[in-house]
C-alpha cells in the first residue's frame, strides 16, 4: 500500500533564501509524523507548499500514490488535506458554526445558510472525537485552547484524512497540550494521518510515531521515538555546524548596571508574556538570553527599553528606576538598543543612511536648537561608514537598498557610538552574512571590555554561547535557569529551551538563581 502522502524533492527558493532544499517526506496511514526543527528551518514553508499557499520551485506531491497538483487551498481541501495554522485562521466576530462552515456552507431553500444542519454536524464531530465546543459561541469569546479545537473541527468538517498541525502547542497550557495529544491519538486510531510540527522534544517523544528532522531547509534525519532520546534529537536539530568562535578574554564584571526584579509584562493580546522575571547584569559582562522565539524575550527587551508598559516589578538601570520611562529617557541614561526587527523598528528604510545614523540623537548631538547640524551629520556619517565598514555607495543611499548585514552595521554604528552603560542587542545577527556576524560579535565584546553591561537576546544558540559570560534560558515567560556559559553544553541548553526542568537537565548545578558572588 502506498503511503497516504509523499513529498519528493520539494525545493522552495525565496528571493535570497533557500527555504526548502530537496525535502523528502512520507506519511503512512494513521501515524503521527513529527517534523522537528529550529525556527526558520523551513517546516512551515514546507507545509504551506503542501497546503497550496506557496508554489514549490521544484518537487512533486503524491497522495495515495497518485501525483497531486495542489495550486491552492481548494485543491488541498479536495485532496483531503487540512491544516491548523500556527496563527489561527478564525474570524472572531463569527460563531463557531459560521467559522467552520465558511467555504463549504450548508444551504437551504436555495440561498439561505443552514446553520442548524452545520451545527448538528459539528456536534457529531465534537462527540466522535471528543472535541467539546459550543457551536453557537462566538469565537472571540473562546479561550485559545478551544479556538484550536474549532480549527481542528474545521479540518474534520471537510473530511480531511491528512491533518497538518503547525506548532499547535505553542499557545497551549500543559493541560491543554495533554488534551490535544489525546485527541491526536483518537484521530489516528480512526485512520487520520497527522503531520505534527514542533520544536519541543518532549512532545515529540510523547506523541509521534516517526520523526523527521529539518535543518536549514533540508531533512537531516529520520528517527523513531523509541530509539531516540531528547539528547539525540537535540543534536540532530541544532546540528554541529562550524562552531562560532569569538576571541574574548575572561569577563571582568564590575558594578551591577541592570537590575531587574519581579518584572511582569503583558503582550499585545493582553496576556502575561513575562512572569516574575529577575536578573542582573554587571558592567563588563555579557548576559545571553536563550530561548525559542515567543517565550517572552521580545516583551522583556521592549519593557527595558521603554517601548512596552511593565505591569509590575522594577527595572533599575545604573541605579535609576527606569520601568515605564520613555524610550528617550532611557536612551539618555546611556542605554543602546539593537532591535530585534531592524526594518520595523531600527531603520527608516526610505531615509538615507546618514539620517538613520541620527535616529535617536538628532535632537541633541546633531542639532543646534531646532536646526540639524548637517555638516556634523555628514562628517559623522562618513566617519562611521568608514569605521564600521558599512558597504554603501554613499551616505545618501537609502537604508533600504543596503544588504541585511550592512543595514545592521548602520544600527551598530549608531548604537555603539554613544557613551553607553548598557547595551541591549536583540537578534544582533539575524539575516546577516558571515563576515558581518564576526564583525558585530567582535564589536559587542569590545564594548564589554570597555565596561558596558550587555544583554544579548538570540534564538541562535551558537551565538548566545559564543558571546555570553552567563546564559539565561527563557521558557514560557520565565527565566528557567541562569548558568555560566562555559559550564553548559549546547544540548543541555536545547533541553532547557524545550521546557525540560533544569533539575533534570543540569543535575550537577545546584541552582540557577543569581546571587551575588555566585557568578563565575
Amino acid at each position, binding site marked *: 500500500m502506498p503511503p497516504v502522502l509523499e513529498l519528493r524533492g520539494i525545493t522552495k527558493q525565496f528571493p535570497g533564501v533557500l527555504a526548502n532544499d530537496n525535502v523528502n517526506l512520507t506519511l503512512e496511514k494513521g501515524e503521527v509524523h513529527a517534523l522537528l526543527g529550529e525556527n526558520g528551518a523551513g517546516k512551515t514553508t514546507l507545509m504551506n507548499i503542501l497546503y497550496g499557499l506557496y508554489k514549490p520551485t521544484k518537487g512533486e506531491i503524491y497522495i495515495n500514490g497518485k501525483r497531486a497538483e495542489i495550486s491552492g487551498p481548494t485543491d488541498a481541501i479536495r485532496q483531503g488535506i487540512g491544516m491548523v495554522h500556527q496563527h489561527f485562521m478564525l474570524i472572531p466576530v463569527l460563531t463557531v458554526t459560521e467559522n467552520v462552515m465558511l467555504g463549504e456552507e450548508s444551504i437551504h431553500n436555495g440561498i439561505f445558510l443552514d446553520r442548524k444542519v452545520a451545527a448538528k454536524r459539528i456536534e457529531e464531530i465534537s462527540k466522535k472525537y471528543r472535541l467539546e465546543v459550543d457551536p453557537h459561541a462566538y469565537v472571540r469569546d473562546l479561550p485559545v485552547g478551544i479556538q484550536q479545537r474549532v480549527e481542528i473541527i474545521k479540518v474534520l468538517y471537510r473530511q480531511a484524512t491528512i491533518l497538518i498541525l503547525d506548532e499547535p502547542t505553542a499557545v497551549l497550557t500543559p493541560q491543554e497540550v495533554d488534551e490535544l495529544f489525546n485527541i491526536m491519538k483518537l484521530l489516528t486510531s480512526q485512520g487520520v494521518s497527522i503531520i505534527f510540527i514542533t520544536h519541543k522534544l518532549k512532545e515529540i517523544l510523547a506523541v509521534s510515531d516517526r520523526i523527521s528532522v529539518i535543518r536549514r531547509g533540508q531533512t537531516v534525519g529520520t528517527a523513531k521515538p523509541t530509539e531516540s532520546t531528547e539528547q539525540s534529537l537535540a543534536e540532530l536539530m541544532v546540528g554541529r555546524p562550524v562552531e562560532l568562535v569569538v576571541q574574548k578574554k575572561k569577563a571582568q564584571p564590575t558594578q551591577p548596571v541592570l537590575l531587574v526584579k519581579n518584572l511582569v509584562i503583558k503582550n499585545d493580546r493582553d496576556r502575561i508574556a513575562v512572569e516574575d522575571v529577575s536578573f542582573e547584569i554587571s558592567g563588563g559582562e555579557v548576559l545571553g538570553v536563550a530561548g525559542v522565539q515567543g517565550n517572552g524575550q521580545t516583551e522583556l527587551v521592549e519593557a527595558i527599553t521603554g517601548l512596552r508598559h511593565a505591569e509590575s516589578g522594577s527595572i533599575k538601570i545604573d541605579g535609576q528606576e527606569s520601568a515605564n520611562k520613555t524610550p528617550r529617557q532611557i536612551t539618555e541614561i546611556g542605554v543602546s538598543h539593537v532591535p530585534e526587527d531592524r526594518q520595523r523598528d531600527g531603520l527608516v528604510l526610505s531615509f538615507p543612511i546618514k539620517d538613520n545614523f541620527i535616529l535617536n540623537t538628532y535632537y541633541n548631538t546633531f542639532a543646534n536648537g531646532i536646526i540639524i547640524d548637517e555638516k556634523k551629520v555628514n562628517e559623522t556619517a562618513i566617519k562611521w561608514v568608514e569605521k564600521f565598514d558599512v558597504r554603501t555607495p554613499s551616505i545618501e543611499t537609502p537604508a533600504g*537598498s543596503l544588504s541585511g548585514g550592512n543595514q545592521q552595521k548602520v544600527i551598530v554604528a549608531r548604537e555603539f557610538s554613544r557613551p553607553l552603560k548598557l547595551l541591549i542587542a536583540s537578534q544582533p545577527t539575524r539575516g546577516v552574512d558571515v563576515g558581518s556576524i564576526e564583525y558585530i560579535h567582535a564589536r559587542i565584546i569590545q564594548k564589554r571590555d570597555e565596561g558596558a553591561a550587555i544583554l544579548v537576546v538570540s534564538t541562535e544558540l551558537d551565538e548566545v554561547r559564543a558571546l555570553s559570560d552567563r546564559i539565561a534560558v527563557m521558557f514560557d515567560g520565565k527565566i528557567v535557569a541562569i548558568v555560566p556559559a562555559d559550564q553548559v553544553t549546547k544540548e543541555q541548553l536545547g533541553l532547557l529551551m524545550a521546557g525540560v526542568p533544569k533539575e533534570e537537565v543540569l543535575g550537577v548545578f545546584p541552582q540557577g538563581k543569581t546571587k551575588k558572588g555566585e557568578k563565575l
Partner: protein
Amino acid sequence: MTTDEKITPSQNGLSSIIKQTFDLVLIPFLAVVTALIIGGFIIVVTDAAVYTAFGEGGIGGGLAAIWTSVSVAYGSMFSGSLGSARDISESLVASTPYIFAGLAVAVGFRGGMFNIGVEGQLLLAVMASVYVGSNFSLPWIIHLPLTILAGMVAGAAWAALAGYLKAKTGAHEVINTIMMNYIVYLFSDWALNGFLCRTPCSSPVSPPVLESAFLPQFFYRLHFGFFLALIVAFAVWWLLFKTTIGFEIRTVGTNPNAARYGGIQTTKVMVLTMAISGALAGLAGASELLGVNRVLAAGFSSGYGFDAIALALLGRSHPLGVVLAALLFGTLRSGATRMQSLANIPTDIISIIQALVIVFIAAPAIIRWIYRIKAKGAEEGGGVMVQGWGS
C-alpha cells in the same frame, strides 16, 4: 525574514543622481501629458461639431474637425494663461492658493496624515481673517500680519483637532476632516447671515477687509501673496528637511515604529503635523482673501481642498514639486476660463484632468504599461500609509 541581499546601485554618484531625477520627473510628466490627451479626447467626443463634420465631410472633414476642436480648446487655454502679461499675472494669481493648499496636504502626507479637510480649514481661516481684517483699524504693519495670523491660527486649531482625535482615540482623520468640512460650511452659512454679515445684512456677504490688511497687488492682479507662497514653500522645505521638527514629522510619517524607537512622541507629532497643515490651509485662504477677493461671500472656495490632494501627489509631497505642480494647475485653471469663453468648453475639464493625473501618479503601473517603461524599484515619494479607519 529579511535577507535581501540587494545589489546597491551604480557607484557613479552623479549619473545615478541624474538618473534618479529623471525617474522622479518622468512619471509625473507622462501622467500630465496622458491626462491632457484623454482630456482632449473627452473634448472631442462631446463636441457636436465633430459629429456633424463626420456626417457631412466624411473621414477627412471629421479629422479636420477633431483637430480644430482640440487645437481651439487647448490653444485658447494656453494663450489664455500665457498669452499676455496680464494672462501670466492671472495664472500666477490662480497658482497662489494652490501652492499653500498643496503644501498643506503635502506636509500631512509627510507626517502620515491624510488631510482631506483643507477646504474646511481654509474657509474657517478666511472667516477669522475677514473678521480681524474688517473689524479692527490698525496700522498696516500690525494689521496685515495679524489678519494673516488669525487665519493661520484658525486653520491650525481646526486641523489640530482632527490630529488630536487620531492620536488619542484612533478616530480616522479622513472621516473626521470630511465631517469637519461640512461643519465649517454650515457655520459659515450661519455666520455670513449673522455676525460676519455686512450691515445692513441684505445678502450673505462679509464687510470688506480694510485696506490696512490688504496684500498689495503690483502686476495686474498679482499680489504679494504669491511671494509669500514662495517664501512659505521654502520655509516648509527648510522645516521638513533641515530641522529636528521636520525630522520627527518625516520619521513618524514613514515609520512610526522606528519613530517610537528613536524616542519621538508620535502623538505629539501627529497633532503638530495637522496643525502645520491647517496653518498652511489657512494661509491659502487668507492670501486669497487679502490679495484678491477682499471680501468673503458664499462660494469663496472652489474646491481648493480636493485640488490640493492632486497637487501634493503630483509634487510628490516635496515643496518644490508642489510649487511646480501648483504653477501648472494654476495655469491650466486660469487658461480654462479663457477656453470656456472662446471654445465654450466648461472649466470643469480641469477637474477631470486632475483626477486622471492622480490616477496615473497613484497607480504608476498604468503609465508604465502605456509607455512600456520598466519598473525601477520603489518609487513612491512621500507615500501615505493610511489604511482602514484605524482603532
